[in-house]
């Protein structure tokens, strides 16, 4: 009998079992291997689009205080440093700054790091020179502040780095503390494991982790936080597979970008690149040994060792890392001593403000959504350059907080019951500089600046008056308007009886004063004369699209607009009839730094400049002698601010919109539940507007008179020319439209001046 291949005994089953288990195991490993490789190779970091504020451009003649420049540098995380020769450092002596910028890839190219000298005198930059060769620099662009990501609600964020960009000391510290055998092992380090076990047993608690960097990466990368033997086994196998397929550099680079290092609201901070910005406000390459050691130390427990919340723990942990570096001979005694003596160096609050700026970021998001897919914004590592001016944004947020609290106190309103929204833009090109969507700037909730549609009240009056002034044969600034009781009956509607806020009627008033004092009845009558469709057409040309029913009450502001829409409308007024889109985004670049899109300046002439010029002068009169007289408390008369108050029925909405030579701002104050606040436009929104604009550098509003405009002296009460009369006002008129009448004090039209003999003319110079 031939011997059997398998003994007929229990062994047979055992061997079959073993073979099956082996096959299953191999199959499992093969499956696992596929998973490991697919994820590792196919993995591109999901990097949400990062958003930058506007870069500050320094040039001779720029209005800037030394404190202003220092604040800007601090905002960029520059270090005050003796030499000021390393990128991201500066030295200040009064108004003289030495600083070295960082190299930065803008949308229009790479800007190398530059060491420069900047001198500020009398509130202006008077010198910008390159330190090398002492060459005069016409302009120097500082790198912009990274203000957040397009999707702050996203759970993961990172700034991926290549291993070559990572400081060698960081790698050394990482290996020294987390996995000494990293460059020798094959994914697992049994000796380290045993050593860790022994140390933990002796200490009676976990003092050392036995996991290799590879295992840690596997844990973060592929597995859940579950703690079990099965998972530990899986982790070990995957670590071995990872090491088998990839070299140490790839694994280390991935680890450095993957490791979890903190939490900012709902956003998880992954990787050393982002963590460096998050904790120190500087790129990783600029960190000192002590700071690198702190980051490495935090891997063990980012929230337990959070240096902002637990500075002592964080410090002790950092020192432990430094000790390990010295003990292993990786740093010398002097470096060790210096690093241990260094302060933590953490910026007091995250510069990447997951808080603040939310309202502005929402505007950015909306502008981008027109051109980009959501997935691209979430994952493709785009960089978005915006016009956000952090100084303006901060001033606006502070003004909202301060003024609302004060108004509530003064008026006995419930604390927290008032809300506000602010939009600030640059007059010249319509770039949006700041947006406040409510009191809680850090809260990405309801954005009142973009989404709260509220009746605008008298903010709409300029639309009516512009419609009139665009008919110069019929109207000018002193055209008499009738502010006597009015009853308007339309078929199928109750009679409309507009009333003035002061409850009185003012009879015959010149056009510009009816606007300055915001008389409702005169405006209503004017609007009816012009025709509501004509007023609506003006509104549309000012840049406000929408389907508004042509009721006459529209002329008095019974039309609901968002603060952003109001800003658009006033932007066209500030631009003398030239409409520009209100834009937040300047440019977008791809992951390689290539420009994907640039949002340039576009201009559309919507009106002839002359009527808008007259209207703007009338809006200056609103501030000079009308409902916005009170602005003088914050802004000197020489700025010649133009603006308009707005109040709605029963004081539910308080508005102010206006502009100087360089800034335009719209402010709304009211309640979310739409209940009355008791605030007029002047008592509420204007106060906020004044405090905000008073805190910014303002240029006077010097309107450019179109050639067809002439300035004449008039008697406004009579609507007549009054050259040389006491109490006469100088106002602009479109040539040929000025009143024909002359006030009695001006006498008859003077005869043409007598020609002087030639020898007299010879010496008469003007």
């Amino acid at each position, binding site marked *: 009998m031939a011997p059997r291949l398998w003994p007929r005994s229990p062994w047979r089953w055992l061997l079959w079992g073993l073979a099956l288990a082996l096959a299953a195991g191999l199959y499992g490993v093969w499956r696992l291997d596929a998973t490991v490789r697919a994820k590792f190779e196919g993995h591109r970091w999901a990097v949400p689009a990062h958003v930058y504020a506007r870069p500050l*451009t320094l040039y001779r003649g720029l209005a800037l205080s030394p404190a202003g420049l220092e604040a800007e540098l601090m905002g960029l995380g520059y270090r005050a440093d003796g030499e000021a020769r390393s990128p991201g450092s500066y030295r200040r002596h009064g108004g003289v700054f030495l600083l070295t910028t960082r190299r930065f890839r803008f949308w229009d190219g790479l800007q190398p790091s530059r060491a420069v000298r900047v001198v500020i005198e009398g509130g202006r930059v008077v010198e910008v020179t390159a330190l090398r060769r002492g060459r005069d620099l016409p302009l120097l662009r500082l790198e912009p502040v990274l203000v957040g990501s397009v999707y702050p609600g996203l759970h993961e964020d990172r700034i991926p780095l290549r291993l070559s960009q990572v400081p060698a000391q960081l790698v050394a510290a990482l290996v020294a503390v987390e996995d000494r055998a990293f460059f020798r092992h094959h994914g697992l380090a049994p000796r380290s494991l045993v050593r860790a076990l022994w140390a933990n047993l002796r200490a009676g608690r976990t003092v050392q982790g036995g996991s290799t960097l590879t295992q840690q990466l596997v844990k973060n990368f592929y597995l859940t936080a579950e703690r079990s033997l099965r998972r530990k086994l899986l982790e070990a196998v995957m670590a071995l597979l990872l090491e088998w397929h990839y070299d140490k550099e790839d694994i280390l680079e991935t680890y450095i970008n993957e490791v979890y290092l903190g939490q900012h609201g709902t956003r998880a901070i992954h990787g050393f690149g982002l963590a460096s910005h998050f904790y120190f406000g500087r790129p990783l390459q600029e960190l000192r040994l002590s700071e690198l050691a702190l980051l490495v130390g935090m891997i063990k427990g980012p929230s337990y060792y959070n240096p902002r919340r637990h500075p002592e723990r964080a410090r002790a942990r950092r020192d432990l890392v430094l000790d390990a570096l010295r003990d292993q001979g990786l740093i010398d005694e002097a470096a060790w001593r210096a690093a241990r003596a260094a302060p933590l160096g953490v910026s007091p609050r995250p510069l990447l403000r997951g808080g603040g700026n939310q309202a502005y970021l929402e505007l950015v998001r909306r502008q981008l959504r027109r051109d980009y897919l959501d997935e691209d914004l979430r994952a493709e590592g785009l960089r978005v350059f915006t016009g956000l001016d952090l100084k303006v944004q901060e001033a606006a947020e502070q003004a909202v907080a301060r003024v609302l609290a004060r108004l509530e106190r003064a008026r006995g309103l419930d604390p927290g019951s008032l809300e506000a929204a602010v939009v600030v833009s640059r007059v010249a*090109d319509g770039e949006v500089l700041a947006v406040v969507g409510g009191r809680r700037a850090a809260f990405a909730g309801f954005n009142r600046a973009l989404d709260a549609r509220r009746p605008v009240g008298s903010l709409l009056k300029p639309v009516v008056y512009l419609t009139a002034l665009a008919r110069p044969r019929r109207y000018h600034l002193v055209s008499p308007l009738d502010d006597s009781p009015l009853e308007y009956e339309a078929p199928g509607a109750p009679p409309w009886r507009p009333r003035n806020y002061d409850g009185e009627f003012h009879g015959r008033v010149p056009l510009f004063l009816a606007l300055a004092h915001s008389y409702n009845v005169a405006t209503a009558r004017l609007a009816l004369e012009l025709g509501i469709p004509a007023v609506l057409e003006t509104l549309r040309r000012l840049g406000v699209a929408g389907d508004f029913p042509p009721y006459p009450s529209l002329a008095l502001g019974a039309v609901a607009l968002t603060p952003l829409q109001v800003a658009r409308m006033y932007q066209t007024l500030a631009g003398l009839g*030239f409409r520009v889109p209100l834009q937040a985004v300047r440019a977008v670049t791809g992951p390689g730094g290539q420009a994907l899109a640039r949002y340039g300046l576009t201009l559309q002439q919507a009106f002839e400049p002359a009527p808008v010029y007259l209207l703007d002068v009338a809006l200056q009169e609103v501030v000079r002698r009308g409902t916005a007289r009170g602005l003088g408390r914050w802004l000197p008369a020489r700025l010649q601010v133009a603006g308009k108050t707005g109040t709605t029925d029963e004081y539910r909405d308080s508005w102010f919109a206006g502009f100087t030579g360089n800034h335009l701002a719209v402010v709304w104050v009211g309640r979310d539940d739409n209940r009355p606040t008791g605030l007029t436009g002047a008592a509420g929104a204007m106060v906020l507007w004044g405090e905000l604009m008073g805190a910014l550098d303002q240029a006077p509003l010097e309107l450019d008179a179109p050639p067809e405009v002439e300035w004449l002296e008039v008697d406004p009460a009579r609507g007549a020319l009054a050259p040389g009369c006491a109490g006469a006002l100088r106002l602009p008129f479109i040539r040929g439209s000025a009143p024909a009448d002359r006030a009695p004090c001006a006498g008859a039209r003077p005869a043409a001046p007598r020609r002087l003999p030639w020898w007299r003319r*010879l010496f008469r110079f003007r």
Partner: protein
Amino acid sequence: MKENIPGPFRRVAPVLGGAPGCGHNAAMHRRRFLLFVLLGALAGLAGCPRPGALVRPVAPPPLSRLPAVQALAESALAAGRRGDWATAAALYERALRLEPRNPRLWHGLARVRYAQEEYRQVLSLAAKSNLLAGGDRRLRAANWRLMGDARHALGEEALAQAAYDRAGRLDPSGPGRWW
């Protein structure tokens, strides 16, 4: 009527310089004329530049008193000469952010938009430049010429002709560059 419209950056004509006070081409106020004839004659004797010396390109007047704006505008012009219109536009926009009321920057941007064949933009930008140009007749004439070119490109011949006519009235000496 023009047969072909040259691109605005290619249209280069030498600018003639004239010394003021020599009475060659200065249209003077009548009142001052009599007085200055005397002084002018004296100055002429004292050494007025010879006519040959007048036909010489004049160093372009600075576009701005701000060196930063000047530098940006020069870079924009250089980019335009390379045909890199996107960069030229971006540079003009940066310059405008620093000096928004400089009519020559608006004009420069209008020229870039012309090269980019964005003719509606040209009309608005040149109109904006005109609004800020004040008494600069040559610049206003150049704006009207540019608007004429844009209207022509848009096929709006009557409006183009009207624009050229206005340019002609403002600056009878014809097209020229002033930087």
